[in-house]
């Protein structure tokens, strides 16, 4: 379990590094804001976060801020700010750029990858070979790295690693030189000590003659001087040796730190192959067996690399992480391909984001086919549009997007989204309905309130346009109402009928509603009747016009409004002309009846009946006059 935690920590570090080290990740966090808030200017290795805010600063590695990825919520915490990785502008931009790029399958790229693989095998193989500075393996590795540098996609990483190796080797050579110097010093010291001892032996030796005593005293004085001289030289040489040792140790430590920094940098830039080559080469160059990372074990970075078991992080830890990340990226890409084959665009997109984020320069990611990129780009584009559409409360668009996502992704569950949109749309429509009711009731205040609510809930509600049109009608209502009243006073029902859409708004007014309805109904009835009469008149050219005339006449007598209609009057005149004899007979009958010339009146009614036997006017007139005649006295 601890190992898993350690791995996740390493992942977060790597992902963080991925997001920080590249250019596109720079600028995350609100440095200027912190400074503006009057906090002390951060030093190298310090977090920019204002600790007074309660947020904990992010861990640091080599003075770099490390954003932490929370895999549970897919959010990244950076300087106290939580960023949705899947919906972050920078991540999105990087991912979208990748989706629009062609697969990197050029001959240069293939050659580069081939050499890289060869170099990896060489370094792995060399790990088992004899370690020796300046060995042929190291030379080949160095040359290979400089060859890799020729490919521009390498971005100078190989050269950087080669330089680090060269620098480390230079230090090793300098150390060796110092070691040789120290060895020479040791020999010289030994000789000096031997000579000193000899001088001391001579000083303690006994003379045989008195005459030699003066000479002996003189020699002793000379030996003492040499002894003293030798001792001084020995001390100097010993000091020089100690100094050389110290310089070697310091140079080695510094060299290790520099080399380790290069490996960590490669790892954080997601150059896993470079990191692996560096890690394997490290053991060649530094043969003392000490691979411990030279970082403070108490620092957060040290804890991130410590391996979860309390041991100090080593170069091997870096190599393990690089190898695991390579494997993880390849597995992600394998999953992407499989999920695309199953039309699981959502999961494929998530896996590809992870793969691109952690292994953008890996072969499996760089050579991912363009067809797959386009499919995912389409899905990604739709998904990207969904959130702004939802934020803009454009539920129609959201539903369209959800439907398309559903088509693209068999696993996409749109039920919650659809339910939410449908509910909001229904709410908006309900307010619109209330607005319509308020409009009819003449309640402007409530109308405005309901329209505002409907627009707030669903600004792009198509029914809002209808509401606006009704509003415009309300604005013009007074003028239309006056015009309507004028027309009704002039009994111009047909004008109202012809412009019924325009005058429909007066129906809002209860007072005019009835008049509007009656005018529309009246003219509708007249037109319907005229159409029917025209058909009948065409069927029987003799009695048809008589019947049409008499029908129109009857209706006109029943409802005086008929006579106000021009079309009615035209029809009446037309049928009166067509049924001239009949109309003449009827008119003459009425005229005679008024003059009390009942004989002539009855004869004319008879005449009219002869022309149109079903004439109700003629029949009624005949019956009326007959009764008068029968009751009269002659």
């Amino acid at each position, binding site marked *: 379990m601890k190992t898993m935690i350690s791995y996740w920590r390493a992942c977060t570090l790597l992902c963080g590094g991925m997001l920080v080290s590249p250019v596109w990740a720079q600028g995350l966090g609100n440095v200027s804001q912190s400074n503006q808030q009057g906090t002390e200017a951060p030093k190298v290795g310090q977090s920019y976060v204002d600790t007074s805010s309660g947020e904990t600063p992010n861990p640091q590695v080599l003075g770099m801020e490390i954003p932490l990825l929370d895999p549970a919520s897919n959010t990244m915490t950076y300087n106290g700010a939580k960023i949705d990785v899947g919906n972050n502008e920078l991540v999105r931009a990087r991912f979208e750029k990748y989706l629009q790029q062609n697969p990197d399958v050029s001959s240069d790229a293939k050659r580069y990858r081939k050499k890289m693989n060869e170099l990896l095998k060489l370094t792995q193989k060399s790990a088992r070979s004899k370690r020796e500075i300046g060995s042929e393996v190291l030379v080949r590795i160095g040359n290979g790295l400089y060859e890799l540098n020729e490919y521009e996609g390498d971005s100078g990483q190989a050269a950087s690693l080669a330089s680090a190796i060269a620098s480390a080797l230079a230090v090793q050579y300098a150390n060796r030189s110092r070691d040789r110097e120290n060895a020479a010093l040791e020999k010289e010291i030994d000789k000096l000590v031997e000579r000193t001892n000899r001088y001391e032996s001579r000083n303690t030796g006994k003379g045989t003659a008195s005459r030699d005593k003066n000479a002996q005293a003189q020699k002793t004085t000379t030996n003492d001087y040499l002894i003293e001289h030798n001792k001084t030289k020995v001390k100097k040489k010993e000091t020089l040796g100690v100094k050389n040792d110290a310089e070697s140790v310091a140079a080695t430590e510094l060299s290790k730190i520099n080399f380790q920094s290069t490996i960590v940098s490669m790892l954080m830039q997601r150059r896993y192959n470079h990191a692996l080559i560096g890690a394997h080469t490290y053991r060649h160059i530094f043969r003392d067996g000490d691979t411990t990372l030279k970082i403070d074990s108490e620092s957060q970075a040290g804890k991130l690399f410590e391996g979860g078991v309390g041991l100090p992080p080593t170069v091997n830890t870096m190599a393990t992480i690089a190898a695991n990340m390579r494997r993880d990226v390849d597995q992600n890409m394998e999953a992407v391909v499989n999920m695309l084959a199953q039309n699981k665009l959502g999961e494929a997109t998530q896996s590809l984001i992870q793969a691109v984020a952690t292994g953008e320069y890996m072969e499996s990611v760089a050579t991912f086919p363009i067809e797959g990129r386009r499919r995912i780009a389409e899905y990604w584009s739709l998904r990207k549009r969904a959130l702004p559409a939802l934020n803009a409360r454009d539920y129609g668009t959201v539903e369209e997007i959800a439907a398309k996502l559903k088509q693209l992704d068999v696993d996409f569950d749109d039920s919650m989204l659809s339910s939410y949109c449908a509910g909001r749309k229904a709410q908006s429509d309900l307010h619109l309905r209330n607005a319509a009711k308020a409009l009819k009731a003449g309640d402007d205040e409530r109308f405005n309130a309901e329209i505002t609510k409907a627009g707030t809930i669903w600004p792009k509600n198509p029914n809002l346009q209808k509401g606006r049109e009704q509003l415009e009608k309300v604005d013009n209502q007074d003028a239309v109402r006056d015009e309507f009243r004028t027309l009704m006073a002039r009994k111009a029902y047909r004008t109202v009928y012809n412009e019924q859409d325009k005058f429909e708004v007066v129906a809002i007014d209860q007072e005019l509603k009835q008049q509007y309805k009656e005018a529309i109904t009246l003219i509708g009835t007249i037109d319907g009747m005229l159409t029917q009469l025209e058909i009948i008149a065409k069927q029987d050219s003799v009695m048809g016009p008589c019947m049409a005339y008499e029908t129109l006449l009857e209706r006109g007598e029943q409802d005086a409004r008929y006579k106000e209609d021009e079309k009615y009057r035209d029809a009446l005149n037309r049928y009166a002309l067509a049924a001239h004899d009949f109309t003449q007979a009827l008119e003459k009958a009425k005229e005679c009846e008024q003059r009390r010339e009942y004989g002539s009146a009855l004869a004319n009614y008879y005449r009219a009946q002869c022309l149109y036997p079903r004439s109700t006017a003629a029949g009624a007139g005949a019956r009326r006059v007959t009764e008068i*005649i029968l009751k009269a006295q002659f």
Partner: protein
Amino acid sequence: MARKRRSSKNKKSQLPLALGGGAAVLLLAVAAAVVMKPSAPKEGTQDSRFRVADYRADASRLTGNSYALSARVENIETLGNDRVVAVSLPNNPQERLPLLVRSGVSGRVNLTRGDTFTFYVVCRNGRDANGAEVKGIMVVEKVEAE
């Protein structure tokens, strides 16, 4: 054929001329007067100059005139024993002429639709129950079956 007759009150004698002239002249004058003067209607004859259209136009103008009309019964309206009979004349079957047939006028003649009869009629004015004038009614005085 129906022939219109005039009242004897309008007739003027030609005898003073005959007395003032010779006997031959008298005879010629008498003969001419006989030829030129409208003859008095004879009961039971048809009046060919009677037109329903004239009657429809202005019946009052015919008030006092008598006609013997051969006509076909088209319709009968009854009030008690009195009847208004609509008849058609042979010269204009499309027209209907209303005739008032009082009770007992037809005698033993049974007026039935579709049959033709000779109606002896007089154009008269009458009064209704309120005393108002009822003009130009053809009142049947006698009916004969044909």
